[in-house]
């Protein structure tokens, strides 16, 4: 895992202040978020009516593309609509921004997880072609830095819930490639024992992972609730999840972030701006320039990073995680990159203009990080790199063998387990019994204020 810090205790739930000699008031600073001041231009200046907000943008390049629907006629005069893109496609690939936090050993470890992520998905593609996968395969190609470096910023007691392109985050958090592979093959030994596929599984006991569902945005209030539950038990944890530029269009995204904002909860939301939501380009999802700007409306910090730069992703995530640990509330991180395959394996993504694909191919996160570690920083020799790649391939081969050899579930195993019953789970607070304070007010019958008679 990332930098180890002493575990923070939940924030002091109140600053005591004396109001006269007899009354004591308690501000519940640990629940609702404090109000914040707004920076204004100085009185008397011509811009005194303007307010200003900050969005930190860590990128070393700021590509701007505009995608439009274009109607053209073919030779027979029939009309067809396609996407056309405009922008500067010849810009040079920027360097990796040095991390404020990562040691050599940590950087290499992130690189290894990205390799595992890439190779696992190649293995999945092959398993699909061999007819061993039930249903489709989803890829995080081009998004490995975003998935792996962000999850790497979490501490052991933190929580996460991946979306479909964050299969790398599962590897970082200690799941085997076999787990995801068995899910795709609907095997009896898969984490859900065949009941769900893909990365739809979880583990609330050891790895603090909540299973995603296919509906987008629904994890956001859930992760906020995890942070709330932990805070009630005296711990400020970071609760990380991801959402695409398409998924963030849902209403529950707003509800979830807003809840974390007003309650000052340690949600770390990584918005994966990967330009395509299935076949819909991002400028048909939202009108603002950058999704990080949404943070202004929520009243929380918003940050932009290059999603193909592992160091930028890590640093932003680590800062957000530390903010969460300090009880300072949620952070929205927008990671800019492109989804480099179709929505799923069935989708050839022919709707994506070729210039865009070529531009982002040059920004492959794995190739960029490899170049950084081997050539720029010389933290890995070419030989060490080769050894590492070979080791990762061996791991994936071994994991695939185990996964392939797992049996299919029996038909009868579809039954049971709908309810938690007969002591199948013991429920106890994860971080210890909440230390509750009780007021002096005692129970009294309520006055009959009847809403509807």
């Amino acid at each position, binding site marked *: 895992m990332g930098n180890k810090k002493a575990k923070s205790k939940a924030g002091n739930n109140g600053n005591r202040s004396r109001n006269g000699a007899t009354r004591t008031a308690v501000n519940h600073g640990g629940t609702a978020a404090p109000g914040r001041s707004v920076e204004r231009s100085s009185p008397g200046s011509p811009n005194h009516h303007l307010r200003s907000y900050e969005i930190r943008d860590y990128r070393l390049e700021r590509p701007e593309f505009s995608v439009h629907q274009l109607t053209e006629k073919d030779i027979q005069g029939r009309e067809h609509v396609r996407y056309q893109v405009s922008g500067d496609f010849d810009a040079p690939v920027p360097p990796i921004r040095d991390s404020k936090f990562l040691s050599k050993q940590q950087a290499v470890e992130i690189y290894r997880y990205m390799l595992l992520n890439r190779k696992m998905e190649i293995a999945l593609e092959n398993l699909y072609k061999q007819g061993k996968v039930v249903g489709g395969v989803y890829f995080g190609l081009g998004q490995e830095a975003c998935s792996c470096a962000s999850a790497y910023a979490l501490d052991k007691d933190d929580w996460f819930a991946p979306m479909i392109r964050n299969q790398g985050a599962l590897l970082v958090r200690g799941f085997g490639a076999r787990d995801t592979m068995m899910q795709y093959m609907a095997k009896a030994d898969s984490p859900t024992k065949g009941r769900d596929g893909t990365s739809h599984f979880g583990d609330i006991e050891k790895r603090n992972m909540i299973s995603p569902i296919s509906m987008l945005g629904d994890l956001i209030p859930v*992760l906020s609730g995890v942070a709330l539950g932990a805070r009630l038990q005296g711990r400020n944890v970071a609760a990380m999840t991801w959402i695409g530029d398409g998924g963030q269009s849902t209403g529950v995204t707003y509800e979830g972030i807003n*809840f974390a904002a007003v309650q000052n909860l340690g949600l770390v939301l990584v918005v994966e701006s990967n330009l395509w939501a299935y076949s819909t380009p991002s400028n048909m999802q939202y009108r603002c320039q950058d999704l990080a700007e949404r943070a202004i409306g929520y009243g929380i910090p918003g940050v932009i990073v290059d999603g193909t730069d592992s160091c930028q992703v890590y640093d932003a995530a680590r800062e957000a995680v530390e903010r969460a640990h300090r009880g300072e509330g949620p952070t929205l991180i927008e990671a800019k990159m492109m989804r480099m395959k179709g929505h799923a394996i069935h989708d050839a993504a022919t709707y994506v203009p070729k210039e865009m694909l070529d531009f982002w191919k040059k920004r492959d996160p794995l190739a960029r990080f490899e170049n950084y570690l081997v050539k720029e920083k010389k933290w890995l020799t070419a030989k060490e790199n080769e050894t590492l790649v070979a080791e990762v391939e061996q791991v994936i081969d071994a994991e695939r063998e185990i996964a392939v050899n797992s049996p299919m579930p029996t038909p009868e195993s579809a039954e049971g387990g709908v309810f938690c019953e007969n002591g199948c789970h013991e429920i106890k607070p994860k971080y210890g019994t909440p230390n509750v304070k*009780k007021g002096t007010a005692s129970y009294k019958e309520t006055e009959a204020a009847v809403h509807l008679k």
Partner: protein
Amino acid sequence: MQLTYLEAIRQGIWEEMERDPTVFCLGEDIGIYGGAFKVTDGFIDRFGPERVIDTPIAESAIVGAAFGASLTGMRPVAEFQFMDFIACAMNQISNMVAKTHYLWGAPAPLVLRGPSGGYVHGGPFHSQNPEMWFVHNPGLKVICPATPYDAKGLIKAAIRDNNPCVFFEHKYLYRRIKEEVPAEDYVVPIGKARLARAGTDLSIITYAAMVHTALEAADILSQEGINLEILDLRTVSPLDREAIVQTVKKTNKVVILHEHSRTGGLAGEIAAIINEEAFDELDGPIIRIAGLDSAIPFSPPQEHHYLPKVEDVVRESRRLKAY
């Protein structure tokens, strides 16, 4: 101690919060204001704003946050100002909360509670009985108490249950009925029906406010020598199949009574259970008394027409008795 239905629920939640520090409440206007119906009145003073949380008007966030907290071992009790608004959180409940134990083995001990039901001229968005939406979602327990004793015992059982429970409080009953409730701690088991009235001629299978409608009808019919048995289901999912079959075997004639719309309603499910398990015991057709297949209208004469009434139960019971 004589308690109203509302007071019984209040006391049940209060006692659970006193007993178990992992229990906390969240919802709209439940703190200083004490909730639209005052169910959590005074809670914030006793338990503090950390455990009695006023939320934004965001039902998906309320359910999502309750669910997330439950995964850390807390026992959240989420209030819906009216159960009509639970529709706003349907995806969270159906796709996240209900399926979680079956799919990936995570228990979610949370309670989603709030007022439902008609007879108060609340109109189409403040009078609904949406329990069937949840009955058709395996993984949820759906509870609809009819009496103060049951309301208190069942809310306590729901809070202690390791599964998501949807708890419907009939708002018509909130302050209209009162009964003796023991001061000492007790729970009413989820999934067990109660014989509200023993009888011999025919069985009314019902729950929530309709139990009282059936009881009134029983008083009228007893003067004609028709002796109704009334089965109060108390929990509509899981259903107490055994109790249903037992009453059918006893009286051989069944009326199923519920407030929500007839089509796709609980009566259809109960009729199917009777067909499967006690068909040979029937001496007449199974009769349904239910709300109309429309939204619940606002104007009192229209609402009255929409909802089941004592005279409906009397009329249908006479017809079935004579069959």
